[in-house]
C-alpha cells in the first residue's frame, strides 16, 4: 500500500509540475507533508535545504530521498520512477511523432496559464518558511538572516550552496551555550 501511495504521490508531482523541477517543490510539500504526513515541516525544510546545497535536479533528489525514508531502496526507485518516467515517455512519443505539437497555440496557452498558479503556490510556501523562522529564531534574527541572505544571493550573486553550506557549518561548530550567551553569537550568524 505504501508503495502505491508513493507512486501516486510522485506521479501526480511529475505530471503537474510544469516549468521544471523547482516548480514541483510546492506539490511535493502538499503530498508529503499535508496529504500523507510522511514528514513534518522541519524534515521537509531539511530535505529542501540539502537538496539546494547538492548539485543535480531537485525533483528527483527529493523524490528519491523521501521514497527511501518511507519505504527503503524499493521506495526510492519507485518514487524516482513515478516522477520522471511518465513525462519522458510522453516526450519521446511526441518528439518522434508530431514535432509541431509545441507550436500549437492551445498547448503554449496551457503552459503559460500554469506559471502564475505555481507562483502562488511558491508564495505561500515562502510565507510558511518565513513564519516558521520567526517562531524558532525570533523576529529579529529571522529578519537578519533573511536580509543577509537576500543581499548575498541577489546583490553579490553568491552561490546558494555556499551560503547554505556556511550556515550549516556555523550551526555545527558553534558551541552549545546557555540562553543568555545566545544573542551575541547569533548576531554573527547572519554572516
Amino acid at each position, binding site marked *: 500500500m505504501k508503495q502505491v501511495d508513493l507512486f501516486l504521490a510522485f506521479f501526480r508531482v*511529475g*505530471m*503537474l*509540475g510544469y*516549468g*521544471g*523541477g*523547482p*516548480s514541483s517543490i*510546492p506539490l511535493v510539500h*502538499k503530498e508529503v507533508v499535508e496529504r500523507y504526513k510522511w514528514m513534518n515541516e*522541519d524534515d521537509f*525544510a531539511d530535505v529542501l*535545504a*540539502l*537538496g*539546494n546545497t*547538492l*548539485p*543535480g*535536479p*531537485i*525533483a*528527483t533528489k527529493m523524490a528519491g*530521498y523521501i521514497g*527511501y525514508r518511507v519505504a527503503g531502496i524499493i521506495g526510492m526507485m519507485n518514487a524516482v520512477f513515478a*516522477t520522471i518516467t511518465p*513525462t*519522458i515517455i510522453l*516526450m*519521446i512519443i*511526441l*518528439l518522434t511523432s508530431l*514535432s509541431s*505539437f509545441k507550436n500549437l*497555440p*492551445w*498547448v503554449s*496557452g*496551457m503552459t*503559460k*496559464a500554469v506559471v*502564475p*498558479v*505555481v507562483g502562488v503556490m*511558491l*508564495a*505561500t510556501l*515562502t510565507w510558511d518558511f518565513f513564519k516558521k523562522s520567526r517562531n524558532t529564531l525570533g523576529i529579529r534574527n*529571522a529578519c537578519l*538572516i*533573511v536580509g543577509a*541572505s537576500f543581499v548575498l*544571493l*541577489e546583490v553579490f550573486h553568491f552561490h*546558494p550552496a555556499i551560503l547554505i553550506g556556511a*550556515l*550549516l557549518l556555523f*550551526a555545527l561548530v558553534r558551541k*552549545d551555550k546557555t540562553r543568555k550567551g545566545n544573542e551575541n553569537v547569533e548576531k554573527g550568524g547572519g554572516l
Partner: protein
Amino acid sequence: MIYWHIFLAFFIPGIVGYGGGPASIPLVENEVVDRYGWLSVTEFSEVLAMGNALPGPIATKMAGYIGFQQGGILGAAIGVFATVAPSLILMIILLSVLHRHKDSPKVKRMTNYVRPTIAVLLGVMTLNFFTTAYEGIGILQTLILIIASFILLEKWKVHPAFVIVGALAYGAIFLA
C-alpha cells in the same frame, strides 16, 4: 562506447549543475551539442521547447529523450541514471546521517539557521514565476490567475492538482 558517452554527457551536468534541473540546461547543451555533436543548436532548442511544454522535471526529460535518440531504450535509461543517481546517493547518505542525530541541538540549529535562506530562495523563485507570467500573458491575465488560484488554494483548500488542471483548461481556451 556510445553508452559510455551518454553516461558521461549526463553525469557531468548532474554533478556540476547546482540549483535544480533548469540550471543544468546550458551544461547539457555544452555536452550534447558542442562536445559530442549529437544535436544541432536548433534541434537542441526544439528538445528544450518541448521539454518546457510538458510537465515534470526538465533535466531528466532531456536525458531520457537524447539518450533514447542516441542509444535506444538502454541509452535513455543510462542518460536518466547518470543525471539522477550521483546527487541522489549523496543526498541519501547526508540526510540519513542528519536524521540519526536529529535530536541533537546542533542538528536542530542547522535546520533553524538555514530556513530563512530557503525562504529567500523560494521568494526569489516566486518573483521569477510572476515576472515570466507577466511577460508571457500580460498583467491582466496574470492577476486573474493569481487571484483565482489563491482563493481556490488557500481559502477553499482545493487540491493543487485540480487547480493546475483548471489553469491548463483556462490557458487552452483563453490564452491560445
